[in-house]
């Protein structure tokens, strides 16, 4: 009974972040909902699998989401984009009013390992150590992936500089 209350507490605390992470990985609300549900059902069914000594509960949940999204990613996409793959944007992207969608597209076009590191760092606010726990790698690798992801996005999203109203208007 006590464990169940803890799981409900964990749900109340993390389900928004878990859904957010799943949505940004899959870009589908329905899929993110399924993944969030599966993630917490996995915790309900086998709470003993979470080992606090190996990391935080948030990192554990994000790792489950990552695995589920990766499974879906492999089922949906035929091939992993290469590191040198460049995003093909239109010649003049400024007419694209929905910059949110453009950023989502740019992030989605990142190689998967860079994409999940960037989302965990940029949108979920995880520390580098936590990201390393989620991704099952070391901090140095996380830093490298983040650096490459941001470098690429600097170039890809440069045409949108003024669309967001940073330095002016459209």
């Amino acid at each position, binding site marked *: 009974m006590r464990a169940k209350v803890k799981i*409900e507490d964990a*749900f109340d605390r993390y*389900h*928004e972040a*878990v*859904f*957010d992470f799943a*949505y*940004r990985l899959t870009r589908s*609300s329905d899929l*993110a*909902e399924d993944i*969030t*549900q599966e993630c*917490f*059902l996995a915790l*309900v069914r086998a709470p003993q699998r979470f080992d606090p000594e190996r990391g935080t509960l948030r990192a554990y949940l994000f790792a489950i989401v990552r695995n589920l999204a990766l499974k879906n990613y492999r089922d949906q996409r035929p091939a992993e984009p290469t590191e040198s793959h460049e995003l093909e944007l239109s010649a003049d992207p400024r007419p694209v009013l929905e*910059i*949110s969608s453009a*950023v*989502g597209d740019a*992030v989605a076009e990142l190689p998967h390992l860079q994409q999940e590191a960037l989302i965990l760092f*940029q*949108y979920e606010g995880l520390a580098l150590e936590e990201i390393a726990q989620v991704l099952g790698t070391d901090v140095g690798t996380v830093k490298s992936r983040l650096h490459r992801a*941001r470098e690429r*996005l*600097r*170039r890809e*999203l*440069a*045409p*949108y*500089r003024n669309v*967001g109203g*940073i330095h002016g208007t459209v």
Partner: protein
Amino acid sequence: MEPFEKDELSDAELDHILRSWSAPAAPARIRAAVFPASSTPWWKRFLTMSIPVPLPVAFCLAFLIAAGVWRWTRPVAPVAPQVLVKTQRVEVPVVQDRVVTKYVYRNAPVAQSAVHSVGFDELRPVAELRPRIIRNGNAKN
């Protein structure tokens, strides 16, 4: 090559643009899907619970229930008188009619049957025919 496209964003610009990518809020129905029993009383769950049954099993159960109902509700036919067949062994005395005793000698020659031993060649006409009349009712003649 346009300088507009070759420019790179600064860290602040990139962070600002990245923040513009919003995600929808998590639907409230996820909680009900993860914790379905938390808000429902046990009796309501008991009344609404379902058990998956394979279709052939369901058909068999329905047939058995229908057969049971039909058998239980049909009118009872008058019972015919029962005929009891009982087999009893009775010993009956048998009167012995006659006793045939046949003696067989071990070293005697094997007698052949008269039918087989007599042939037509051995038949001879009698030398003198003496007919004898036996009257009916006269036991001495």
